[in-house]
């Protein structure tokens, strides 16, 4: 284990920023319902969040503070996924800042900027997983599922942080289809996690992969895994968001059937309920879960050979 908390935070923030951008992008395109209130806040925070994570990474480098001029060579090796990451993150931070500026000044950004940003955001999210998945000597990381899992978690946490901040920033906050998006993302993540750990645990990735999985499922990291990641990060939000989604569907129907004053009131009550403390707690819970996932993946990485044991 050579990487610690700074790397965990860096991977987490990379995903969070990328997810926030994509949330606002989706909202802007109308994929989260008409006039979604999430169409700006994600753009505001995306680049700063990723940039902050990148600065943390510099502190983790052995030479980050002593010989920072060496860092320019990080662009040198095109066969290194880390080099790809430096390009992707730099580009995303620049495009993200530009798009954030347009969103902040309520100007319409050129389409090319919005799309380039969305592409780079997706690349950023995938990169954080790909960085790990190409390491053949760490079986726990060496899965093609890693980038998919990280992108899904990035979207989920990005949606939560945007939904969390939007009511404070936007004057006439209106709930869109984000509850539904939450349900799909968390559902997808649960399936991916189940397959990932199922395969790890069954030994498809060799005995060391199985050992790593055991550390997570029943070993020292089991509390973080079951409590923070599965419980707080996935199951609890899944229950809350599904409930809210069903309620809002029902009240919508009610309203369509009998557009009476009472029905309208109850529909508004449901709408109001969405900005309640429960929603805030749930969104925070999703974010905590996303962080726990990065921590588990980094901390439970065992090398294919411990460097000591011989027959």
């Amino acid at each position: 284990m050579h990487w610690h908390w700074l790397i965990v935070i860096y991977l987490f923030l990379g995903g969070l920023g990328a997810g926030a951008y994509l949330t606002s992008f989706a909202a802007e395109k109308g994929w989260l319902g008409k006039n979604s209130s999430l169409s700006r806040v994600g753009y505001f925070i995306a680049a700063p969040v990723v940039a902050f994570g990148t600065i943390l990474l510099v502190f983790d480098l052995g030479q980050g503070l002593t010989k920072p001029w060496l860092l320019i060579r990080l662009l040198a090796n095109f066969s290194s996924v880390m080099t790809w990451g430096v390009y992707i993150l730099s580009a995303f931070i620049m495009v993200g800042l530009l798009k954030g500026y347009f969103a902040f000044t309520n100007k319409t950004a050129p389409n090319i900027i919005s799309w380039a940003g969305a592409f780079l955001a997706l690349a950023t999210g995938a990169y954080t997983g790909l960085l790990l998945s190409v390491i053949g000597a760490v079986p726990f990381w060496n899965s093609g599922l890693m980038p998919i899992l990280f992108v899904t978690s990035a979207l989920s946490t990005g949606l939560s942080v945007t939904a969390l901040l939007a009511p404070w920033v936007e004057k006439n906050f209106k709930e869109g289809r984000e509850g539904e998006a939450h349900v799909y993302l968390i559902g997808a993540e649960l399936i991916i996690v189940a397959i990932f750990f199922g395969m790890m645990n069954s030994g498809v990735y060799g005995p060391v992969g199985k050992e790593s999985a055991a550390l997570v499922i029943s070993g020292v990291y089991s509390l973080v895994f079951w409590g923070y990641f599965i419980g707080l990060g996935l199951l609890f939000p899944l229950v809350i968001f599904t409930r809210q989604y069903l309620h809002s569907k029902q009240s919508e129907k009610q309203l369509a059937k009998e557009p009476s004053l009472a029905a309208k009131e109850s529909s508004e009550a449901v709408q109001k309920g969405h900005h309640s403390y429960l929603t805030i707690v749930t969104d925070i819970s999703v974010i905590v879960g996303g962080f726990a996932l990065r921590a588990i993946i980094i901390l439970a990485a065992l090398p294919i050979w411990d460097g000591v044991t011989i027959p």
Partner: protein
Amino acid sequence: MDNLKGKLISRRKVIKIGAIASTALALGIFPGRIVKADASSDAPKNPKQLGFKYDQEKCIGCRVCQAACKDANEWEEGTEWRHVLTGKSGNFLSISCNHCDKPACATVCPVKAYTKRDEDGIVIQDREKCVGCKYCMYACPYHAPQFSYDTGRISKCHFCFERQENGEKPACVHRCPTGALTYGELTTIQKSKGAVSQLEGLPNPELTKPSLIIIPKA
């Protein structure tokens, strides 16, 4: 409510979820990790590739190879370029960088601090270029790259390439009193009697194609 539920989990959604699940499953399996272990006869890409040869029968576990390496190469605080390991049955293994045919360190290093020489396949790491990201420490299955918290950078065995250029043997080989540790062109030492490229429990040689030949105790 019942009607509503029926609508929520429609057939389309079931198909969607099934598609996600099967894609995920396929992606999990694809990077063919079920690689077969095989004998040491695999020819390296470079016919002049140098490698270490370690004869378990001859080794007495004196650790002079380690000390010789430390003296000759002035290990940075906290680094060990060569290890002498002891097994449960009392067998030893002296191991350093294996100057692999497919060096994972060189692939992942973002600053190109690693180079594999054309003339002899030695993998040299330039510590002046290293930024200390430790990515190579994860990539190398043999724990060859060593990080010093003192200097904040990686260093590792370079096969005493400077000594070799002056016509000398690598320090570890030179000082080994029993001749357990030797070196030579990989294609030659692979032909040694009883030569293998992997001991049980060590990484699959297919991963990086190490230039290490072991003659296990019979």
